């Protein structure tokens, strides 16, 4: 594998202006495939989630999954797109062993959604608007495993094995218009854009959105032009960049590589590039050629999809609040500082805190419990905080007990541990463990008498005005009551008993 020359990113930015473009493929989490009733499930035994349709057997016909259409419309709406009144599927024809019919059923000149935009927030709060060209429906291909080579790559393989479980899984491909004006923030924007798309489809509930499983896959187009020139340069398309970090790195690398090519006076080749996570570089795939004549034509086995305005509005009414708007609203409602809010978002407990507040806790109490107690426990258990099983109602109950003076904060954390251990509700655990702050004076007076008797000299010291000596007696009482006494009340009672007024 030859190594390409690259320029430093700074130098590249001095000389050139990057133009980006993205094709993000989102796998929908429908129960069945796009055109067949076989299950859409990840990770099963090879060639078991298939029927005759997925294998492209002779005689089979596709039938469109209605849920996949609805999910696609939702994605289009969330990306501020227009929804086509009528659209069709087409056949994109090319031979490849992971494509059972040797054509992919896709949308070509009639995408279901088009002309949208997405406002992407960069880390410093700058908002960058990315224009969406289209979002169209298509089907995924099967999975090839290359055997016999040293690396498991297609290069050097002796043969390949095909599993068609993924063949026919519904995809929505989101295509941006050329993104200009990002300048040196292009790599950061790339990452933020893909993250925003991922967040949107997850928030819509239409995709599992796990990049590590290929639920969201990104092809990144990069071209450079000298500053001040309007015409775009020749672009490369880096395929299957499948983590947020990799998107950022791949765009940065391609900018540096293009800059070096342009500096050398050579033309950039319009080609596919492959991303390598290990070396953080791309290598040449194949150049565009006349073999890319896909001979699209309308899929004759399917009929047009007509999205009535009523249907579109019904779907729009089901859309959740867009993630960015929601965050803005919650931050204002809760009164958290920028730092506090970012920590909450990064810890992934936004939903949990919102639910806890809805259940009756104050914003500060909810944050204190989730950020102060639960996130740490979740980290120790290596699970998401939401998966620990803490109900919002539990936190509200704990907070109310503390506020009413029934238990103190220290006890409350013990109760939380009890809840996590499955011992019952907070009230039950307080009962079972006998964890009440003792506020009945009777037992306290007994304990005070015992403590005074045990330390005979202390009472005199207090009477003599050395009020700070009271600590020894309070400590004795607390010890005797195993910490359940209300220390303030104990102090009052001792002073009363000794007839001392402070």
């Amino acid at each position: 594998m030859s190594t390409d020359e690259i320029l430093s990113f700074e130098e590249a930015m001095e000389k050139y202006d990057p133009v980006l473009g993205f094709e993000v493929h989102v796998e929908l989490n429908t129960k069945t495939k796009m055109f067949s009733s076989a299950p859409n499930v990840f990770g099963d035994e090879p060639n078991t989630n298939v029927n005759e349709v997925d294998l492209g057997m002779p005689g089979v016909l596709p039938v469109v999954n209605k849920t996949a259409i609805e999910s696609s419309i939702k994605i289009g709406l969330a990306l501020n797109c227009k929804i086509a009144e009528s659209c069709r599927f087409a056949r994109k024809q090319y031979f490849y062993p992971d494509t059972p019919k040797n054509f992919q059923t896709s949308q070509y000149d009639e995408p279901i959604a088009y002309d949208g935009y997405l406002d992407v927030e960069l880390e410093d709060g700058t908002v960058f608007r990315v224009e969406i060209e289209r979002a169209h429906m298509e089907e995924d291909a099967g999975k090839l495993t290359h055997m016999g080579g040293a690396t498991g790559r297609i290069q050097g393989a002796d043969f390949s094995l095909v599993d068609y479980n993924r063949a026919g899984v519904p995809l929505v491909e989101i295509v941006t218009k050329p993104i200009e004006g990002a300048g040196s923030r292009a790599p950061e924007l790339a990452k933020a854009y893909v993250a925003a798309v991922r967040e949107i489809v997850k928030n819509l509930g239409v995709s599992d959105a796990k990049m590590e499983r290929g639920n969201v896959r990104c092809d990144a187009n990069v071209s450079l032009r000298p500053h001040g020139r309007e015409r775009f340069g020749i672009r490369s398309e880096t395929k299957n960049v499948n983590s947020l970090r990799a998107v950022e790195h791949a765009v940065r690398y391609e900018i540096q590589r293009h800059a070096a090519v342009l500096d050398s006076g050579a033309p950039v080749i319009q080609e596919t590039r492959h991303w390598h996570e290990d070396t953080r570089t791309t290598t040449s795939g194949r150049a565009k050629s006349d073999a890319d004549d896909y001979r699209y034509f309308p899929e004759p086995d399917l009929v047009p999809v007509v999205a009535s305005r009523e249907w579109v509005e019904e779907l729009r009414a089901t859309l959740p609040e867009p993630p960015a708007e929601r965050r803005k609203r919650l931050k204002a409602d809760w009164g958290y500082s920028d730092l506090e809010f970012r920590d909450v978002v990064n810890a992934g407990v936004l939903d949990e805190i919102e639910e806890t507040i809805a259940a009756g806790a104050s914003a500060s109490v909810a944050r204190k419990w989730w950020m102060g107690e639960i996130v740490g426990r979740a980290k120790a258990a290596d699970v998401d905080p939401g998966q620990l099983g803490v109900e919002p109602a539990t936190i509200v109950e704990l907070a109310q007990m503390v506020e009413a003076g029934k238990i103190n904060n220290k006890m409350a954390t013990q109760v939380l541990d009890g809840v996590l251990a499955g011992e019952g509700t907070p009230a039950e655990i307080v009962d079972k463990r006998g964890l009440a702050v003792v506020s009945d004076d009777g037992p306290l007076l007994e304990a005070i008498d015992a403590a005074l008797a045990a330390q005979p000299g202390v009472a005199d010291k207090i009477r003599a005005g050395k009020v700070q000596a009271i600590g020894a007696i309070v400590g004795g009482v607390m010890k005797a009551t195993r910490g359940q006494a209300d220390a303030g009340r104990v102090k009052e009672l001792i002073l009363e008993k000794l007839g001392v007024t402070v």
Partner: protein
Amino acid sequence: MTEQNPAGISAETLIRLSAAQLADKLAAGEVTAVEATQAYLDRIAAVDGQVNAFLHVNAEEALAVAAEVDAIRAAGGAEAEALHYLAGVPIAVKDLIVTIGQPTTAGSKILEGWHSPYDATVVERLRAAKMPILGKTNLDEFAMGSSTEHSAYGPTRNPWDLDRIPGGSGGGSAAAVAAFEAPLALGTDTGGSIRQPGAVTGTVGVKPTYGSVSRYGAIAMASSLDQIGPVTRTVLDSALLHQVIGGHDPRDSTSLPEPLADLVAAAKTGNVEGLRIGIIKELHGEGYQAGVENRFNDALELLKEAGAEIVEVSCPNFQYALGAYYLIMPSEASSNLAKFDGVRYGLRVLPEEGPMTIERVMGATRAAGFGDEVKRRIILGTYALSAGYYDAYYGSAQKVRTLVQRDFDAAFTQADVLISPTAPTTAFPLGEKLDDPLAMYLNDVATIPANLAGVPGLSLPGGLADEDGLPVGIQLLAPAREDARLYRVGAVLESLLEAKWGGPLLAQAPDLAAAGTLETQEAK
């Protein structure tokens, strides 16, 4: 083989009954389904060496289904009551339609030995009706042809003259029915593959309205043109079979949602009084054999006598129909046949030399597995869809389709049913047009417009041509979703013609069994 049932019906008589007659005798207990099925299997054994209508004979399963029907009938009760009218009536299936338990080849080497793991919807419906499936019939490879000479498994011969073609692509189904090897058969019709073989073999064939019968499990040639339909000896039998296989199927997105009309009742209407029957000016006369034209005129005369009003209509855009068809069909076929690549099923051929990549294996497999006509159409279709040519070819052809539909719409304001000869000529000799694709394509000139517009068409025997004594087909066309009209007019015309002939036309066909026994045994 000459064993007789209690009612004294000989096997020779049994195989010549129409499906409806056989069904009546089965219901009345005069014959058993096993007897009928065995009679057909014996007939296949006796004559198919000459005809080559069958690629596979499914004797064991057919007899088992027949025995099941007999047992149910014998037991009586609700289950016997619930039996379909055609239960126990055997049928042959064109080998383009997939069947569990039997090979499906599409007449191609590329699928030799392949067994489908699923049944076509129409096959499921035959099974639900408990109709014994006699076997799979020969066809032009992937249904591409008008003579059945393009089968990878040898041509089928016309029972009227074994040196002539039986039509195509469904020559096997038509010849099987004409040679009394089956009372019923299924065909598929993309440009005339049911109707044209029907015409040249003296049988009845129907291309239903597009979407009337599910295409699920019919190996696609041209998805927007293909339609499965009945191949029979009488119009009533076609209506009966259409009723079994038709109706909505959720597995075919182009399947019509509404229930089928009562086609059998339509076939039994018995009159055509007041119906307007339109002669399509562009589909007779010049280019049509004189004997074909004569029989066509006879049919018009009979219909007029029966009280129909004969009008003339013009469909000027039909002149472009053949050209549009030969762009749309290969385009869709080139795409539909891409899946045959030696990866998932069927033939795999390794290149004789050079690198052994999957791309080359696909290329070698398709080179060896497809015949010339299939390759020709794939290349033509690839051309018509390729960058820079799409608008001029495929796009223009789809526009012509609109024009053809408009012609039909206009014609159907003037006439209830349209009429034409089914094919320009009677059966031509084997080999005559094999090396002249264009001449072969012209056989379909009268049948293609119906496929482009999706309207239903029926071909029935119109008699024998004066010059060669071979069958002539009369084609009836109706508006989309009005298949019932075809059965109504077709049944009336059939009864008028049979009254004139003194019986079915097929009674005049040469006796294959007598001439062929020795030859058959030598061939097998």
